[in-house]
C-alpha cells in the first residue's frame, strides 16, 4: 500500500473507530475481544483497501464484524469456556435501576449464542429490518426470526430487570 492509500485508510479508521468499536463491543461482550474483533475486521479491510476505498468501506467492515463474530463462535464451540451462571458477587441495588439493568443485560448478553447476540445488535442497535439482517448474515428470514425470538425469550429469563424496565416504560407511556 502506498503512502496515499495508507493515509486515506488511516483517516477512515480514525474517523470511524469510535462508532465501530461500539458495535464490536456489543457483539463481543468485552473491550479486549471487541478490539480483537475490530482489529481483525480492519486488517481484512486493509488488504482490500484499494478496491474498497472507492465504495463503502464501512459497510464492508461491519459485514466482516458480524461474520467474524459468528465464525468465532463456531471455532470456539469446541473449546468453549465454562459459563458462570451467577455473578460472583451480588451487586447492591441501584436506586435508579439503570446499573442493575445494565449489569444484568451485559451478563445476559454474554450467555446468548454469538449468533443470537449478533441478530439482536443488527436488529435493535443497527436498526436493520429482518430482510436486511438475513442478507448481511447470509441466512433466511425465518432463521433471523427464530434467532430473535429465542434471544428475547432468553433475555427475559436471564435479565428480570429488563422485564421490570419494560413494564415501567409501559406505565410511563
Amino acid at each position, binding site marked *: 500500500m*502506498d503512502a496515499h492509500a495508507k493515509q486515506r485508510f488511516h483517516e477512515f479508521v480514525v*474517523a470511524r*473507530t469510535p462508532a465501530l*468499536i461500539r458495535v464490536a463491543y456489543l457483539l463481543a461482550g468485552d473491550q479486549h475481544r471487541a478490539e480483537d474483533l475490530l482489529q481483525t475486521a*480492519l486488517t481484512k479491510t486493509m488488504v482490500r483497501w484499494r478496491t474498497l476505498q472507492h465504495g*463503502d468501506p464501512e459497510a464492508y467492515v461491519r459485514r466482516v464484524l458480524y461474520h467474524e463474530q459468528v465464525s468465532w463462535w463456531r471455532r470456539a464451540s469446541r473449546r468453549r469456556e465454562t459459563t458462570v451462571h451467577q455473578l460472583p458477587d451480588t451487586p447492591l441495588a441501584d436506586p435508579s435501576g439503570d446499573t442493575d439493568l445494565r449489569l444484568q443485560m451485559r451478563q445476559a448478553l454474554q450467555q446468548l449464542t454469538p449468533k443470537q447476540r449478533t441478530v439482536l445488535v443488527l*436488529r435493535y*442497535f443497527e436498526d436493520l429490518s429482518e430482510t*436486511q439482517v438475513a442478507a448481511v448474515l447470509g441466512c433466511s428470514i425465518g432463521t433471523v426470526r427464530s434467532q430473535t425470538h429465542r434471544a428475547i425469550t432468553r433475555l427475559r429469563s436471564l435479565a428480570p430487570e429488563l422485564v421490570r424496565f419494560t413494564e415501567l416504560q409501559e406505565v410511563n407511556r
Partner: protein
Amino acid sequence: MTGPMEDAIRAVLRDLSQEAVPLNLTQQAIRGAARRRIALTAAGVAAVTAIGLAAAPLALAAASREPTVTTTPASPTTHPSPVRQFDPGVRSIAVGWLPSPFRAGTTEVDVSAGSQRFEADRPGGRQGDGVYVTAMAAGAKFPTPRPSPSVPPTVTHAAPPVNGHRALCVDFAPIHCVSLRVEYATDAWFEAGYTSTYPNESPGEASARIANLRKMAASVRMDDTKRVRLPFRVRQLPKALHLTSTSVRWPGTPRSPWWATASFLDRDTPVTRTFPGSPSVDVVVAPASTQHQPSNTTVDGHPARRVHNTLGDTLDVFGVDGVDITVRARPASLAALLGPDGAVSMYHQLKLVPHPGSLAGWTDHPLG
C-alpha cells in the same frame, strides 16, 4: 418491531455501547495486513513452487527475461507553471511509458486533496498490483503516515535528477526507493511507484524496479488537458453543489470491474482533504452485478435499494442499461440539497450515455 421489550433492548444496547473505549487501531491493522500479506505470499510461493516443479523449463525461461519495455517511447517532458488546484474535470497527467505488463487503469482527480492520480494495473491481476503516478498541486504535500514507534518512517534522500529536475527516493525500510518523487514545477511534485511492495526482492530485482521507476517518471507530462470522460451526465446539478473529484477505472478485470465516480460538495463547506465517509455526494456507475444487497423499492421500474436515515441517503438502482447506479449523499444535511426526494431527485437528473458499458460513448462534458 416497536414493542416495549424491543424499545427497552434498543435503549440498553445504546447504553451498553457507550462503555466501549475508543482507540486508534490503524497501525495494528497495517501490521496485521502486512503479516496477512506475507502469509498469503508464502502460501502463494508454496503453491507456485509446487506447480513450478512441473513447469520448470517454462518458468526458468520466463524468469531469465529482463523487465521489458512496452509501447510508446518516452515523450518529451514539459513542465508548466505550477497550479494551486487541479480541475477535477481535467486530467493533467500523461504517462508515456509503462513497465511491462502494466496497462493504464484508474485515473483519479481529487481537487479536495489537491492531487491527481494515475494507476496502471497488471492485466488479469487484482487491483492494487500495479504502478502509479500521483501528482500534487503546487504547495500540496504528500500524505505521510503519522509517526509511530511500530511503523518505520518513510525517509527521502536525493536521487539523480529526472529530465533535469530534482528527484528524491522514498525509502520505506527495509525497501530502498519504494517510490520516486520528481519536482515537476516549483514546489510541485509527483510521485511514481509500485502499488505493491516487494520486501523479499533480490538486489537485481530492486535495481530493475528502480530503473523502471526512473524511466516511467521521465515519461510523465503534466501539461495534458484531456477532459475526464464519464458514462453519465448530470442534467441539472443543484446550484449549491460543485464537482470536487472524479475517479474512473477502465478497463476493469473480472475481479475488479470498471467504475466511474463523480463527487460533489456544497459550496459552503470548505474543501479539505476527503476520506471515505466524509461529507460528499457521490454518483457511481459500475457494471450491473448480481451480487448486490436485496432491493427494497423500485425506481422507474428498476429494482432499487434505498437507505435513508440521519446518516444520509443512499440509493442503488440495479440493472439500468447493463449498469448499476449509486447516488450516495452524506450527511443528511447534504442529501437535503439534492431536491425534495433526496438521492432519488439526484438520480432523476442523471442521464446515461448510450451503451454505458462501452468507453467509446462516454462524455467529457458530464455537467449540464
